[in-house]
């Protein structure tokens, strides 16, 4: 008996090593069983793994009154964001000719009213039509509109026929006329395909706010371009569209563009 009691006493005694082992084991078990769930959950939460929905419609509002003549911050930012600046002119090409062939996703345009002489400066890019002619004409479906309103080119399906460029009422598309070196991982490009502004789709997919051109314009202190969700009545862009008069370019075509202009 005494032996048994002894044993009982022994068992009652706290064994710190055993406790430490159990603690570590529990911790490891928890880590092995729960952590993957946590990690998976984290990946699930990453926006690029979620299907794009039509709950939003991305768009831009351009206030031409704030757009400054001579400023090209939006164009430069677009070139850096999308790697257009990495494409160099072929050595044998004439500069003047390359100017007509190099890609431009956004360009600055300066206008003068024939009647009144009023000058306007504005950035012009893909207007992200609700009913895009480029999507209508594309034979392979490479030119497509995402559920969130972004019109872009699937570079794996584009055969380089350029019919979309014929069809775009805004001359928004560029054909990649030469080799492309040193591309950005987020914006793959390739010779012989057509491309255009995609509202910095790589930023959308990582849940970032704004676009490169909007950021650059704001950094210059002009705030002429506003990016946002046209379907969200509380978004800045919707509130501004409610407050100020705006219009679509070539609105006679009834394309319901995602890019709106004020002061044109």
């Amino acid at each position: 008996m005494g032996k048994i009691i002894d044993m009982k006493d022994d068992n009652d005694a706290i064994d710190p090593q055993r406790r430490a082992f159990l603690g570590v084991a529990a911790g490891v078990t928890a880590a092995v069983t729960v952590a993957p769930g946590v990690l998976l959950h984290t990946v699930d939460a990453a926006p690029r793994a979620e299907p794009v929905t039509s709950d939003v419609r991305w768009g831009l509002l351009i206030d031409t009154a704030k757009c400054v003549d001579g400023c090209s911050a939006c164009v430069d930012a677009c070139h850096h964001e999308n790697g257009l600046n990495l494409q160099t002119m072929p050595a044998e090409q004439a500069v003047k000719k390359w100017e007509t062939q190099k890609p431009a996703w956004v360009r600055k345009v300066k206008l003068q009213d024939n009647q009144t002489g009023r000058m306007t400066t504005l950035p012009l890019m893909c207007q992200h039509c609700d009913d895009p002619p480029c999507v209508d004409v594309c034979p392979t479906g490479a030119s497509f509109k995402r559920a969130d309103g972004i019109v872009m080119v699937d570079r794996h399906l584009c055969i380089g026929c350029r019919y979309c460029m014929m069809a775009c009422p805004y001359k928004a598309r560029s054909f990649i006329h030469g080799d492309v070196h040193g591309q950005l991982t987020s914006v793959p490009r390739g010779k012989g395909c057509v491309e255009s502004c995609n509202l910095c789709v790589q930023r959308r997919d990582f849940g970032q706010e704004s676009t490169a051109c909007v950021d650059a314009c704001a950094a210059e202190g002009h705030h002429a371009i506003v990016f946002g969700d046209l379907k969200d009545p509380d978004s800045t862009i919707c509130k501004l569209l409610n407050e100020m008069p705006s219009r679509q370019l070539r609105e006679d075509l009834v394309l319901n563009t995602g890019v709106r202009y004020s002061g044109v």
Partner: protein
Amino acid sequence: MKRIVYREWRIPPTQFWSILGILAAVVSMATLAFGYMEHTGHWVSGMNNSVVWGTPHVFAVFLIIAASGALNIASISTVFHKPIYKPLGRLSGLLAAAMLMGGLLVLVMDLGRPERLIVAMTNYNFSSIFAWNIFLYTGFLIIVIAYLWTMADRQGAAFNRPVGIIAFLWRLALTTGTGSIFGFLVARQAYDAAILAPLFVVISFAYGLAVFMLVLIYAFDEDNRPIGAKIMRRLKNLLGLFVAGGLYFTLIYHLTNLYGAKNDGFELWLLTNGGMHTFMFWVGSVLIGGLLPLGIIYHPELSKERNWIMTACGLVIIGGLATMSVVIIGSQAYPIQMFPGQTILESGFFDGVNGAAAPYHPTIPELLLGLGGVAVSLIITVVGVRVLQFLPESLADDIVALDEELLGEEAFAKPA
């Protein structure tokens, strides 16, 4: 009317191989041009982000619509019961298939990614007239081959008329589809006009017939086969009708544009100060492709001479290429009117600064690619007539069917 005998083209072998050699050389040059443009990129061409379709497309579209026009001769015989055209049916079908192949090759070789042709064959967007055209073109080839079989094989003769009717309707759809590539585009002032589709149908009749007549006359002359005055008269009168029809549709197209103020700018530019494009329109399309051939065809003396008729055919072809260049290149060169009532003072993307047209200067590789398509069409034709019985032995007046136009009313009266 005697039985029509078809025979292979029996020119001397040296001549046959010389013709093939020259054509093969042109195709080789075109292949090199294709390799060069695809390897380096399209910057070596004259095409740019404003004028995205250039010289290759001028040749490609010309060949494609001429293909459907060439088939017209067979249709007149089969569908419209004009027996005088029957001996010409086989060559008509061969030329149609050959020119379509040539035109399509040029179109495909100019793609930015020609190696992705399989993508175009496996992914279709049926709201695109281009996607429909892929079916219209391949279907046309199959139907024309079937049509040729019904003309050449005794077993097929029973199907001649139904297949002929399908071929006729199909070629109308094909040319309408080709015209609609441009007619459906709302973006550009020169397009967005439904009349482009029927215009393309009518000019396709003229181009196809002009090519057909040149090939026919050349092939017959080289092989010492006779062509009678009767059939020549019919063919050249038909050509005159088609050329006049083309001019009429062109006139209506421009009148419609001129009536609305919104297209005044485009018409003023094209008709008066578009430089090369204005020249191409007035001198190339209207004068060389229209008025001069009409003058020859309806001239009381010249119209009887074979060389002058061939000249008229050549002029229609040259004028046709000029017309294609106006429709395809000129229409793109005119800046898109994004800001009506405003003048563009500066632009980073050639938006027509101060109304300036977009630049386009064709380059040698583009031209070679286009000529390559013509050479491919001719190789198919030359080999076809050489090895198979496409050409009738004679088109002399006593061989061809009665010319019902010259008969008096009594010839049509029922026998008592």
